[in-house]
């Protein structure tokens, strides 16, 4: 009996040790909308690339876009002063004329000027379109063609283009060659108004930013964090963050404190609420975008 008991205990112990697992985990499905998608926009902060990003805060990778029509209502807050202006632009790419980096990676396509374009009845100007990039440690600048542009800095100057929020911007295209006119309305998003609470300081590396905005909760908003050097007006976009339009985002401190902030004077938080859609197909496909943009420029404490 004693022997049998001993064998039973040893067998049970071996069985238990061999077959032991741990209790089943529970997979929690994120239904909180507290998501945060982070993309690095510029690796080299000394020689930033403008590829895919313009200084107004509009960030688009245009290599996959056939043609682009974009209208923006833009606000820039510096200290307690907010300047508002409107921007409309259009670019038509010739997909037969790609521009490559030296390693054969696609940089962009040459643009074409196929006709005249009007936004809200005002004809857009044609201006040169340049892309600035860095390759092999060397700063490069390339002209890819022309683009259509209207901008209203103050009270219809220089162009009488006004961007109405939560409304429409009319678009008209009159081709030089064959084909009929194209016209449609571009829906515009609700205006976005951001507030930034920046605490800590760069010396202690304990900066933390709490961002608030007027939530609409429908789609996601874009937050772009950029830096400005002393004495410069243009910001270098660093991060592009997408999050739900719930009105609040706490930027984890590590995103700010790992940056070489001692070289920069100001930090720019840009809130973007946008509408994006496609019209047409094939080579006539239009990527249509309208955006409400609010950039807040703050001295780095």
């Amino acid at each position, binding site marked *: 009996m004693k022997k049998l008991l001993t064998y039973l205990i040893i067998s049970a112990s071996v069985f238990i040790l061999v077959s032991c*697992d741990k*209790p089943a*985990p*529970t997979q929690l499905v994120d*239904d*909180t909308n507290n998501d945060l998608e*982070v993309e690095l926009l510029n690796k080299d902060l000394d020689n930033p690339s403008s590829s895919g990003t313009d200084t107004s805060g509009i960030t688009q990778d245009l290599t996959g876009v056939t043609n682009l029509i974009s209208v923006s209502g833009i606000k820039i807050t510096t200290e307690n002063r907010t300047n508002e202006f409107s921007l409309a632009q259009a670019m038509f790419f010739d997909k037969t004329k790609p521009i490559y980096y030296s390693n054969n990676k696609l940089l962009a396509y040459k643009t074409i000027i196929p006709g005249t374009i009007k936004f809200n009845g005002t004809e857009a100007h044609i201006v040169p379109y340049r892309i600035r990039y860095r390759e092999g440690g060397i700063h490069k600048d390339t002209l890819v063609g022309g683009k259509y542009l209207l901008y209203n800095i103050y009270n219809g100057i220089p162009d009488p283009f006004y961007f109405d929020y939560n409304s429409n911007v009319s678009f008209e295209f009159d081709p030089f060659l064959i084909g009929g006119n194209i016209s449609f309305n571009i829906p515009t998003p609700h205006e976005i108004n951001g507030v930034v609470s920046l605490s800590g300081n760069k010396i202690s590396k304990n900066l933390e930013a709490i961002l608030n905005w007027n939530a609409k909760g429908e789609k996601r908003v874009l937050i772009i964090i950029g830096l400005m050097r002393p004495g410069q007006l243009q910001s270098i976009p660093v991060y592009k963050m997408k999050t739900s339009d719930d009105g609040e985002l706490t930027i984890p401190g590590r995103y700010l404190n790992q940056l070489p902030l001692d070289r920069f004077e100001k930090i720019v938080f840009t809130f973007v609420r946008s509408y994006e859609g496609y019209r047409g197909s094939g080579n006539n496909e239009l990527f249509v975008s309208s955006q409400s943009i609010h950039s807040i420029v703050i001295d780095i404490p």
Partner: protein
Amino acid sequence: MALNLNILPQSSFGLTGYWGLQESVTIPFYNYESNSSNYFGIKDWGISLQYGAEFSGSINSSLYLLALAKKLGNHSLSARFTPGYQKEFLFATGESIIINDTTTQSLKANYNYKELFGIGYSYKFDEQFNAGLVVRFFSQDFNREIVKPVYGDTLYLVREAINEKVNMWNVDIGIDFILNKQFQFRAASINLVNVKDEFTNEEFQGFEMDQKRGAFLTASYMPAEFFNFHLLYETSNSFQVSATGYAKGFTYGLTAFHDYYQEPYIAGVVPAVGYRTNLFEILLSGVKYFSERNTDASFSKFYEEGIHNIINNRYSFDKVVLSLALNISSKPEKQVELIDVEIVRDIYPTFYDKYIDQPFAYGRVVNISDKPVSVIPSVKIEGITDDKIQSPPQMLAPGDTAKVPFYLIIPDNYVIDKATLSYADFYVTASSNEPDAQLQKAALINSINSWDGNVANLRYFIMRDQDFSMNYAKSVLSDNKSTLDTIPFAISAFIKSKILFNDFVKRLVYTSDPRATAENVQFPKQTIELKGGDCDDLSVAYSSLLESVGIQTALVDYKEDGEIRHVNVLLNTKLSPTQAKFITTNDSKFFIRKNEQGNDEIWIPIETTSLTDFDEAWNVGVEKFNREALVKLGLATGKVEIIDVY
């Protein structure tokens, strides 16, 4: 992300259900969750193991518990290792990173809450009260991926895993009150004391276990061994009700629990069935939840409400648990039980050897084994004996109840000035050195001058100061050497008695006992030093003096003298009836008794309270003796008794 989760350490839920203080099982007592008072019914060593499977779509088997318990007298110690007491949560942090402009990678996290081990201690104050505490160690492992910018020549975003382990100690106390076999109660704390590590990483703050304090109360109604009913109520407004029982080796239990933090109202049941012998127990239990359980759950609900127990929460799965326990005892099985003890005699320390022959207490002992046993009763009285005084063994047939005597030996040098209430510990031992059962009773220990009124017991007072009496008597006789040298040897005992009495009466007066100490008797030395005494003091003193010089004496117990008993002395002159004329010509002044050889000897009664002189005391003694013992037939009727001192 700062959260305020309520992830709490274990509350009162156990994987085998709630069994109250039912001693026919030991496995449920390893559940510290409902046994904060560390109550154990084991006799010596106990080992337990709980192994089970969880049904979460797939089957995960786990070793839930390994435990050890040890009983040391009234102390109980236990320790347990609980590798299966853990709950892990996996989730996406909500953060994602875009790599190479196109690929989005989501970051993940896993948080694991564990109870790793615990220790328990309890003390059984008596058969009704047990109190104890358990200390448990919890560990919280937090792991998550983060996006971290790294800046060298250029800026990069990298995925990095960060982790933190936060440990926590939890102390809870409990007290058990066993009113009787039918009604038993327990009160215990929940999360009374929590000592935990500080967080160093803010990423995990808010996800730690909470310290919400509470308590639980239990009540058991146990009308019969095969049916017991228990109720456990937690201050969180959760409760458990259970029915348990034991019959012919089989055990069963069914616990239904309402968890304030779970749906539906009765969140689940814990059925259990087992079998036990004296050596081992086996118990198969299960946890069945009445709500649907999935491996996927809402993060927002977890975010808002957390969990309130590691092994029993809204994310727990149905389980089957097999529990094994060994009850190892280096002590032999209890064979006899001491039901009751009756103290039949007060303790008079002067009667030092009286209780060797006459038991001062009787105990009722039952043989609870299935074979005949030899029971050794023993007793230890605080203040009198340092060791147990054993009484002769008694044989008991299986199932028999017997009345066993408890004898006592009092050290002859034991001195106690006034009566004291002490405690007597009664033991019955069957087959080993350790008693099978014991009982404690209050016992009155009288002072050394106390007397029970039995004249026969006055001899203990006579014998106590033998050295003093001998020295005193020899000194008196030595002073009368010239007289003694001239008398015939035949009357030397008579003359010595006379000399001693006449010296004796010169020093003494008759004084009755103080009212409050009517049954007090002085030792001879005390009587002579105090220069007086009553009839028993004077008789004791005179008898002691005579005995110390070899003159045989007896005490005459006049049991009825009005309402007061009386004692005087009868002394042996060693004269034969034909020699009586040497001391008296009046044949009514002596009494003839046969000695051990069958020869007649002349005895004369001396009234020791007649403190004039020997002749007068003799006359008074004779007069009383003849009247009470002979004329009134006192000796024949037993109203007068002659008690030899030796």
